[in-house]
C-alpha cells in the first residue's frame, strides 16, 4: 500500500517497499518555553533553523504543530505552513488537535498534506474527515476512543478497523490515505509498553495492511540515553511493519539506525542510499577539514 504525499514540487511515497518515511518532530512548541514566547509575539524566525536542521538531518517530511497556550493556533499554523513551504520542498504533516487550525493550515498548503490526527471518536472524525476530503489530504488516525487509550493490541486493531471502515465508507477517503498510529508509550512507565506497540503493528500490517506512523520519541521519555533507545526502537518497529515515524531527525545516531534498518529490510537496493549517505558525510568532513 502506498501513501503518496507532496509539496508544490516534490512527491514522496510511504510504503513497506519504500525507504522509511522520517517525519521531523521538531517544529512543535510543547516544552519549548522560549519558542512559545516567540510565537506569542508573532516571531517565527526559530522555525527556519528547525527546518534547516531537520532537512540536513535527513527528514523525509516535517511535522508542523503550533499548539501552545494563548496562541492563536489557526493563524499561527497557517503562517508557519506558508513560511516553511518557502524554505523547503519537503511535504508537511499538519498537526493540531484544533479543527480550525487544521483547516487554516490545509487552506494555505500547496500539495497533498498529511493531517495529524483523528481518533476513533465519531465526533472528531465527523469534524476532520470532511476537511481531509475537501483538501485531498491524507490522515493519521490513532486507535483510541473517548473512553481510553487501549493497552491491548487486539483492541487497538479493532479500533483501527472502525476508523478505516468509517473513513472509507462514510467519507470516501481512499484507504491508502489513512495512516494508523499504533500508539507508542514510554517504556519507562511500563516495561511491556513497547512489546504491545510492536504487536499492534504486526496485527495492523497483517489484518489491515495500511501504512503506520507513530511518535517514536515517546518511547524513551523519562529514561537516560534517549538517543540509543530511539535508535533501537525504530528498527524493531520497522521490522514489525512500521513505515513512518514522527521522530528526531536531527540526531545522526537515530537517523542512521533507521537507514541501516532500511538496508537490512530490503528497502535500499544495493545499499545505494546507505553508500550515498556515507559519501555525503565524507565530503562534509573533507570540506570542514579544508576550511580549517
Amino acid at each position, binding site marked *: 500500500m502506498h501513501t503518496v504525499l507532496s509539496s508544490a514540487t516534490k512527491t514522496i511515497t510511504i510504503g513497506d517497499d519504500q525507504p522509511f518515511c522520517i517525519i521531523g518532530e521538531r517544529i512543535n512548541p*510543547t516544552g519549548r518555553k522560549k519558542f512559545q514566547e516567540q510565537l506569542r509575539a508573532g516571531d517565527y524566525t526559530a522555525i527556519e533553523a528547525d527546518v534547516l536542521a531537520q532537512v540536513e538531518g535527513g527528514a523525509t517530511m516535517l511535522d508542523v504543530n503550533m*499548539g501552545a497556550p494563548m496562541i492563536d493556533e489557526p493563524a499561527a499554523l497557517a503562517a508557519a505552513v506558508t513560511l516553511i513551504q518557502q524554505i523547503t520542498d519537503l511535504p508537511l504533516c499538519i498537526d493540531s*488537535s484544533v479543527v480550525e487550525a487544521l483547516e487554516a493550515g490545509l487552506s494555505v498548503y500547496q500539495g497533498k498534506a498529511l493531517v495529524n490526527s483523528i481518533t476513533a471518536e465519531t465526533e472528531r472524525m465527523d469534524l476532520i474527515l470532511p476537511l481531509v476530503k475537501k483538501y485531498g489530504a491524507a490522515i493519521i488516525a490513532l486507535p483510541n476512543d473517548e473512553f481510553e*487509550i487501549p493497552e491491548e493490541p487486539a483492541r487497538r486493531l479493532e479500533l483501527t478497523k472502525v476508523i478505516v471502515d468509517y473513513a472509507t465508507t462514510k467519507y470516501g477517503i481512499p484507504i491508502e490515505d489513512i495512516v494508523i498510529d499504533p500508539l507508542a508509550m514510554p517504556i*519507562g512507565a511500563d516495561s511491556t509498553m513497547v512489546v504491545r506497540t510492536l504487536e499492534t503493528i504486526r496485527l495492523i500490517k497483517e489484518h489491515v495492511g495500511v501504512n503506520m506512523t507513530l511518535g517514536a520519541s515517546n518511547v524513551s521519555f523519562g529514561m*537516560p540515553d534517549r538517543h540509543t533507545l530511539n535508535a533501537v526502537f525504530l528498527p524493531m518497529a520497522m521490522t514489525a511493519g512500521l513505515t513512518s515515524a514522527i521522530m528526531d531527525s536531527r540526531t545522526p545516531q537515530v537517523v542512521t539506525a533507521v537507514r541501516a534498518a532500511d538496508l537490512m529490510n530490503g528497502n535500499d537496493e544495493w545499499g545505494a542510499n546507505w553508500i550515498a549517505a556515507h559519501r555525503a558525510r565524507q565530503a562534509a568532513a573533507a570540506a570542514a577539514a579544508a576550511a580549517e
Partner: protein
Amino acid sequence: MTPDEILKNLYDETMVGNAPAVLDLTNEGLAIGMTPEQILFEALIPSLEEVGARFERGDYFVPEMLIAGRAMSGALEVLRPLLALTGVETVGTFLMGTVKGDVHDIGKNLVNIMLEGAGFHVIDIGVQAGPEKFIAGIEEHKPDIVGMSAFLTTTMPMFKANINAIEKAGLRDQVIIMVGGAPVTQEYADVCGADGYAADAATAVRRAKDLIAKRRASVNA
C-alpha cells in the same frame, strides 16, 4: 534489628524500590513496637523525598521513581488503617483526575505515585472527568487539593470550565487547585485561575506541600 536499623533499612530499600523488603521491615518494625507515624515520617517519606530530589536533578529516572513509589504503597496499605486509628493528621488529601475529553493518564499516574510517596492520601477519579465528577469528588472526599491533568491544547480549556463549576458550586474556597500536563505552562495556570502548576511529578509534590503549608498557616493565623 533495632528501631534505628529498621528505619535505615526502610529508607534504603524504599529508595531502590525493593517492595518485599519494605513490607517485611514495616511489619517487623510494628512487631517490635515502633509506631506507624515513626515508620512513615522517619523512613518512608524521607526516602521518597530523596527519590524526588534525585529525579529533579536528573540522577533518577522514571522507572526508579515508579518502583520506589510502589514499594512505599505496599507499606502504606499496612500503615494506613493503623494511622487512621491513631488519628494522625495526614500530609493532605489530593483529588486527581484527567479532564473531560482527555484519556491520557501516564503523567497523572506518575504524579499520583509521588504524592502518595510524600504521604498524601490520593483519590484518583480517572480520565474523562467532567466538572460534575470533580464536584462530587470534592463533596465526598473533602480534599485539600484538586489536581487536573490535560495532555492536549484542546482539553486544557476544561481547567477553566472545571474551576468555574467548582466556584459556582460554592466549593472554590475549600480547595487548592493545581493543574498540569505536557502542554500546560505556569502562565496558562495563572490565566485559568489555578493556584498551582508544576512541570513534573517531583516538582508537583513540592508545590502541593508548599501550597498546603501556606493554606494551613493562613487559616491558623
